[in-house]
């Protein structure tokens, strides 16, 4: 399967958008190579601003650009940007409702060998509690391009989660993409697997494996985590009666929590969350770290078996 790094697609699409729209400005915090905003810098140096290692400042500056009518994309490693910049995002972006595109890089286990100080597994939770911020994590590079474009068109704050390492292509150029609209990638009857980002490919892999065990799994690519596409999710779950969520993030407060909150109020069914289980990571390469943290197709398969067993009891 072809694999492309989402950040590559991000950096390239940003350049195209820059060509089309002179209002787009790009801000970075000394990680322009990792974020691939250096491509934009090369093309439009006058619309690129490196603010150095100052993730709180970059948020405020982005808000100022937005107030003045520009469309700022602000970039840094997700943990530093949303961690250091959280209060600035809270007030200057969310509360002020400014059109800032917050772009978190090196998400999840991307920088595995740098260790836990560099591994954002909490960023979705940090953004979910802020009213009015859309949260988007595309499943692959093709979807990333569409998401960046849609983010630029969207009026309002948005958090875009960008991975560093190549992930398999699971969507096609022709597939429609709409912010806030979940996509069913595979239809099934017995269980709904809801996945986001790099975990979508693993959800599809698990569905294959499950099919060989006689279990028919529906796989949903939930690229927009907030606002939730409640209609698509509920329709699927009402059909299957069982849910497994999968995300490269802590199970506390992330996508799985959002789905659980919806279902417990609207349509309670057995549910399991695949994600990081309230622990810090360790230093390890990306794939190994996914194994250590249980972010695998196998973990999804096992969780599916558990929810189905619960339904039979």
């Amino acid at each position, binding site marked *: 399967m072809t694999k492309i790094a989402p950040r590559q697609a991000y950096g390239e699409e940003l350049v195209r958008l820059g060509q089309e729209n002179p209002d787009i400005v790009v801000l*970075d915090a*000394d*990680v*322009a*190579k*990792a974020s691939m905003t*250096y491509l934009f810098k090369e093309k439009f140096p006058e619309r690129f601003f*490196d*603010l*150095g*290692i*100052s*993730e*709180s*400042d970059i948020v405020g500056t982005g808000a100022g650009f937005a107030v003045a009518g520009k469309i700022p994309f602000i970039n840094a490693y997700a*943990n*530093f940007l949303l*961690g*250091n910049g959280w209060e600035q995002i809270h007030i200057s972006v969310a509360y002020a409702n400014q059109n800032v595109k917050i772009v978190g890089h090196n998400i999840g286990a991307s920088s595995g*060998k*740098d*260790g*836990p*100080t*560099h591994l954002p597994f909490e960023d979705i939770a940090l953004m979910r509690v802020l009213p009015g911020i859309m949260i988007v994590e595309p499943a692959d590079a093709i979807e990333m391009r569409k998401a960046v474009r849609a983010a630029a068109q969207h009026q309002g704050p948005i958090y875009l989660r960008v991975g560093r390492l190549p992930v398999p292509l699971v969507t096609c150029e022709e597939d429609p993409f709409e912010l806030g609209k979940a996509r069913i990638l595979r239809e099934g009857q017995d269980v709904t697997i809801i996945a986001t980002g790099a975990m979508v490919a693993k959800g599809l892999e698990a569905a294959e494996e499950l099919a060989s065990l006689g279990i028919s799994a529906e796989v949903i690519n939930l690229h927009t985590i907030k606002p939730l596409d409640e209609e698509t999710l509920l329709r699927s779950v009402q059909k299957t009666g069982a849910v497994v969520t999968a995300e490269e993030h802590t199970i506390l407060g992330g996508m799985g929590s959002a789905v659980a909150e919806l279902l417990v109020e609207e349509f309670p069914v057995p549910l399991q969350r695949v994600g990081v289980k309230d622990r810090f990571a*360790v*230093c*390890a*390469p990306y794939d*190994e770290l996914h194994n*250590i943290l249980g972010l695998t197709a196998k973990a999804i398969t096992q969780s599916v078996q558990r929810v189905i067993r619960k339904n039979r009891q």
Partner: protein
Amino acid sequence: MSIVDLKRKANLIRQDIITMLVPAKAGHPGGSLSAADIVATLYFKEMRINPQEPNWADRDRFVLSKGHAAPVLYAALAEKGYFPKDELLGLRQTGRMLQGHPDMKRTPGVDMSSGSLGQGLSVANGMALAGKLDKKDYRVYVLLGDGEVAEGQVWEAAMAAAHYKLDNLTAILDYNGLQIDGPTDSVMSSAPLADKWRAFCWNVIEVDGHDIEALEKAFAEAKQVKGKPTILIAKTVKGKGVSFMENQVGWHGSAPNAEQAEQALKELREEGLSLG
């Protein structure tokens, strides 16, 4: 320890940095090498520490605020005897003690976990304030990067250290002129550094960060100054000691391969021999 012995230690630390980065296949040679003379002077001359008792309550403390320079700290700790030198080869490997950035829970001798830039000076302030409260005479050292000081928290802490007259605190700024995106002067100029810290009411000493004799003198002066924290603005060369890494922004965060390491070690061994 004599000046020449300290130079030998710094040279060994540089060799260890290169050696451990090869199997790790990732990590930060540039900012580790630039700080080797500073860290050698601290660990082998300046600091009151005991590797047999890493948590000794009266020890001097060291906070590596620029946590990505973990290799220089690990090399110093191993040379000092906090743990066997073999551990260095486990840097960044799954299940091993030496994480990509310092982890105080795993590694004896590491006084504070770090890796998210901008936080170390505040932590050092807390340690220094606690020392005063407990009437202990330990000193606190903290090493900052010149790109790192763009973080606002550094200046919040700078104000607090002067306000609380933390004369038991010495900061060292590794003034190597480079960060990730390029020269600090073109990414986010932090100059004039000495004037900034002076304006924040610190005692400022400008020093050649590779001149061990000068570093020793500066640390001694810092101990004599009362009522103010001291900062050494240490002019350094990023990648110092390895010709092809010196002043190269590309060597900020990539490890040498075996061949490059051999070349680097050859140069460093020659330098070691020249020390007699």
